[in-house]
């Protein structure tokens, strides 16, 4: 770096401060006393910011909560506003939403697998160190991610913060030809995804399982992405409108993020492993076969294997995208009218990291009166802490450096969205 003006610059941190997080572990003798994941959570600010806004604005505003999963926010927002107004966008629009969402799953999962999580398993400090030894692998990951970006760009208008999404549907539907020309690249990406499942399936996974409840959308006949009812691993089923009757958010002193509990069941997880466990039978044949060959059973309760589930879901998203494109006819019109109607609406979709809940009250003059957003990471926080407590307890013989590294790897299992719930992970271990 050249400092043209010859002055020293101490950059304390670049300014993508969507969120910051820290983790504290307190060990007394041979017992883990406390594990706290501190998360500063912006969605509460967005909830306040949305009040008084026009009912057509939440998809664009909430998309800015997270740079990694803007489509998730847009889709949950559209679903909730349309629900409040009593409008159904219709199958053609829902299918195009699903296709756009596939793009987001592909790029988000590819980023996490290749640049964030795989280095942990291969003994590298990060993606840069891994790239120096395994340039071909990192290039493969970037090519996979790019396929997702291109799909998002073709439908959303651009790969970040898509501008083509509106309440009721889309500003403009891509032509059939626009999407057909993506097929070759998506097929190549599907081959990479298949290699990816086999590659991550060969990693060493610590022997560690949890018995928390699991929460995911379910829509029999199809793997859940853009809609469905909520199912739990203990057999409860409820509609999006009943989310707040079943999920209780509680304040904890060490974090501005609320902890979530399933009423009557306690700590739970949402996310890829929960989706897979509750819905693996609805994956495409190709994805099911690849999962089996990579050593995944019908369910996944070892958080370290979440990387395999992400790879399987990436493969599925590519397979599903190709299926949707083959069947695609542009929705006419590209958006349905959503006449203003005073009321309350709910929207739940499966963000790459899990269930994303939106609820809005819309007034008779079309303004948002209240908004509530429950992102996946805050739902998972209590479970992450509970798992880490147990994980650390069994590894107290490790020195602080090794312990820190193992804990960071463990936290990455859950892919906490620090943009939407930690950016800097400062880990402190207090041994007493």
């Amino acid at each position: 770096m050249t400092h043209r003006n010859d002055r020293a610059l101490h950059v304390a941190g670049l300014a993508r401060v969507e969120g910051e997080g820290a983790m504290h572990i307190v060990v007394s003798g041979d017992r883990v006393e406390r594990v706290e994941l501190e998360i500063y959570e912006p969605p509460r600010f967005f909830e306040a910011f949305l009040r008084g806004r026009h009912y057509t604005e939440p998809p664009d505003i909430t998309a800015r909560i997270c740079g990694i999963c803007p489509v998730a926010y847009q889709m949950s927002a559209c679903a909730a506003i349309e629900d409040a107004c009593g409008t159904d966008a219709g199958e053609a629009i829902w299918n195009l939403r699903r296709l756009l969402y596939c793009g987001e799953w592909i790029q988000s999962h590819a980023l996490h697998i290749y640049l964030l999580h795989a280095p942990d398993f291969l003994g590298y400090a990060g993606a840069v160190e891994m790239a120096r030894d395994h340039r071909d692998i990192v290039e493969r990951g970037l090519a996979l991610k790019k396929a997702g970006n291109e799909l998002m760009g073709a439908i959303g208008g651009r790969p970040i913060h898509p501008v083509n999404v509106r309440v009721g549907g889309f500003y403009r539907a891509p032509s059939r030809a626009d999407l057909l020309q993506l097929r070759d690249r998506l097929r190549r990406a599907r081959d990479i995804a298949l290699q990816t499942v086999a590659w991550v399936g060969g990693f060493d996974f610590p022997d560690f399982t949890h018995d928390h409840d699991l929460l995911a959308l379910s829509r029999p006949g199809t793997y859940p992405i853009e809609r469905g009812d909520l199912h739990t691993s203990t057999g409860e089923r409820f509609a999006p409108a009943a989310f707040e009757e079943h999920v209780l958010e509680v304040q904890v002193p060490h974090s501005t993020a609320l902890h979530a509990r399933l009423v009557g069941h306690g700590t739970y997880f949402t996310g890829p492993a929960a989706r897979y466990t509750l819905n693996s039978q609805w994956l495409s044949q190709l994805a099911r076969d690849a999962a089996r060959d990579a050593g995944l059973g019908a369910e996944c309760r070892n958080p370290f294997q979440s990387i395999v589930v992400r790879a399987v879901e990436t493969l599925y998203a590519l397979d599903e995208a190709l299926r949707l494109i083959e069947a695609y006819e542009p929705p006419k019109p590209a958006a349905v009218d959503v006449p203003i109607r005073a009321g309350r609406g709910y929207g739940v979709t499966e963000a790459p990291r899990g269930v994303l809940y939106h609820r809005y009250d819309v007034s008779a003059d079309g303004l948002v009166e209240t908004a509530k957003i429950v992102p996946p990471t805050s739902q998972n926080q209590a479970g992450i802490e509970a798992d880490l407590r147990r994980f650390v307890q069994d590894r107290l013989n490790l020195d602080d450096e090794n312990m820190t590294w193992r804990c960071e790897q463990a936290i990455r299992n859950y892919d906490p969205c620090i943009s939407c719930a930690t950016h800097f992970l400062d880990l402190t271990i207090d041994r007493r």
Partner: protein
Amino acid sequence: MTAVVIGIGNEFRRDDGVGPAVVQRLAELDLPGVSLTVTDGEPSRLIDLWAEADVVVLIDAVRNDPARPGKIHELIVDRPVGGLGGTASSHGLGLGEAIDLAVALERMPRRLVILAIEGADFSAGTGLSPEVAAAIDRLVDLAAREVGTALPR
């Protein structure tokens, strides 16, 4: 010869929105042959945006301690930066990692200029602090000059 200007930032985090604000101003100048883009700084996207370019100007807000809000640092990056803004993040990677990764993959632009501007307020909300807003004209000039010298007249 290709020139790209990239504004990094989030306009819902006050001064973090300065990169996108500068790009918006540059769009009004209608500079021929210059592609303008706004992104969130995620490394693989940055690498895709800049890998084929000859000249890249990247505008990003930075936190400094002590802060001199509105102060512009012009950095010409021609080698690995080793931990610029390095994080132990579980979720995202920073600009420093983007540069180091691009170097490892041999996908750096021919010339990369970073215009880093010190911000005062990165809290949730819209609008720039007065010191940062006052620096926009200078940032636009610096960026336009940098891409201008790279393009045929």
